[in-house]
């Protein structure tokens, strides 16, 4: 294959990958952020303590995370058809990608939000803030550097998943590497795809790390505060008799 043959293939593939990963990241963040926060809030000792709801959400997240992506894609075919009208192509791939990434991102959000010092939550409560204020003014802004790192991790994972989206004809770089590089022995093309993927992932990781670090540097470490007390200080680790 000559470069002039490869070039349109590759640029189309790059665009497909970015399109799928971009949209599914947006959906994963929009869906996973509230879910992750809800996991923290409903937990024992949380502001919206609801152990039953917490268990249910936790289980759904676990099951969704344990499905291999290719199985999830097949299992969701009917759902995908109802949403996009088709099971083939880029749009059809976005649905399982996003659904696979939501629980992934939600767990990362949960970990990040749990790191927030419970004393800050208490402080906002003492000012008369409600749960929504706590989420908006404390939990999200204080865990923002971690949330950005989590988003980076999610994007990188999605690029990996998207290679499998080729099986539903969605294209993308991974698909090129498999169909041309592996199945048609176009070794050169395969290495070029791998190189492109490596560069793209490095760039995303670099940008994400940079953003997280600059936020962190601004705020610095929050210092002496005990970090493990999250939400414990308020009403509830121990119920009132």
């Amino acid at each position, binding site marked *: 294959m000559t470069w002039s043959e490869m070039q349109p293939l590759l640029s189309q593939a790059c665009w497909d990958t970015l399109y799928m990963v971009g949209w599914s990241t947006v959906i994963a963040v929009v869906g996973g952020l509230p879910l992750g926060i809800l996991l923290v809030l409903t937990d024992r000792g949380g502001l919206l303590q609801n152990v039953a709801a917490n268990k249910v959400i936790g289980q759904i997240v676990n099951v969704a995370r344990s499905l291999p992506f290719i199985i999830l894609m097949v299992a969701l075919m009917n759902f995908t058809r109802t949403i996009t009208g088709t099971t083939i192509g880029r749009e059809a791939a976005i649905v399982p990608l996003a659904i696979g990434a939501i629980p992934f991102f939600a767990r990362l959000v949960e970990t990040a939000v749990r790191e927030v010092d419970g004393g800050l939550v208490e402080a906002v409560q003492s000012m008369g803030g409600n749960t929504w204020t706590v989420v908006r003014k404390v939990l999200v802004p204080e865990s923002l550097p971690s949330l950005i790192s989590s988003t980076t991790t999610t994007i990188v994972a999605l690029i990996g998943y998207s290679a499998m989206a080729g099986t539903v004809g969605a294209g993308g770089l991974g698909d090129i590497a498999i169909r041309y590089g592996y199945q048609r022995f176009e070794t050169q093309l395969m290495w070029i795809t791998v190189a492109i993927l490596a560069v793209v992932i490095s760039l995303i990781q670099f940008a994400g790390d940079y953003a997280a670090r600059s936020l962190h540097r601004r705020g*610095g470490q929050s*210092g002496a505060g005990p970090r493990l007390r999250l939400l414990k200080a308020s009403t509830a680790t121990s119920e009132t008799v």
Partner: protein
Amino acid sequence: MITTSGLTKVYRSRGREVTALDGVDLHVREGEVYGVIGQSGAGKSSLIRCVNLLEKPTAGTVTVAGQDLTALAGRGPRAGRELRQARSRIGMVFQHFNLLSSRTVQDNIELPLEILGKSGKERSAKALELLDLVGLADKAKSYPAQLSGGQKQRVGIARALAGDPKVLLSDEATSALDPETTRSILQLLRDLNRQLGLTVLLITHEMDVVKNVCDSAALMRNGRIVESGTVSELLATPGSELASALFPVSGEAHSADRTVVDVTFHGEAATQPVISQLSRTYNIDISILGAAIDTVGGLQVGRMRIELPGRYEDNVVPIGFLREQGLQIDVLGQEPVLLKEGAK
């Protein structure tokens, strides 16, 4: 200003019950600095958290500025609107400052005003005014991570004052600070108390804090208040643990034929040179074994342990003289004073 009655808090976790507060009756008068002292686990933190209902009491009532907060609490674990409004009128300062690391100093102070729904202009004007009040006017744009512990606590205090509260709760505000900084923060609290007529309820495990700023104090142990009162009332109470902790004196008699006497000064008597009067009047040599004297609320108060030559029987007259001067006298190794007098 703050009254709790029969305040009880029981924690239950995994079937075990822990009583943190066991019927606490506390009364903090308007405009005073009230210190609650006790060891860790005594229930101080639960008490101060029950005052603004960050912890919901199991039983009993809390009244702040005439408003029964326990009645506003509702049944669920979440705070309703009325309770949240009441909380916004009570400032709170924390041991670990609890400043948001993602916000500048000024934005931290504006946070309570955002919650109150004030406009941007009002917020920044108030924040700058408060920064000036706590002596950090030049730090508005700094982040908490760039400040020292004492400066962080000043920001914490400014933030607590943003909603113009009448009551300030201080949860071990100086416990994470070095002695020098502790003094300056206590001075600030004292000044605010005087300038703004702020009522301050503070909890601490450091006796020095009580000694430096408090008008009244209470000693807590095992979820109960063991002693309470104004500092001079406590001093006047024979055998008061707080008084002896506030003004510790020590020293043993040099030999068996000497009498050791603890003299407690408070109020008017403290201004008289009684020891030298005693020495001159009865021509006896007095040795001072130990003394702890301080100025609390403008009055000299304190205790002194002195040694008189001769046994107790030989010193009945000089001791009587001291009592006549309005001093409180405890003779070591004797029956408690009040009982003895009662027997006569």
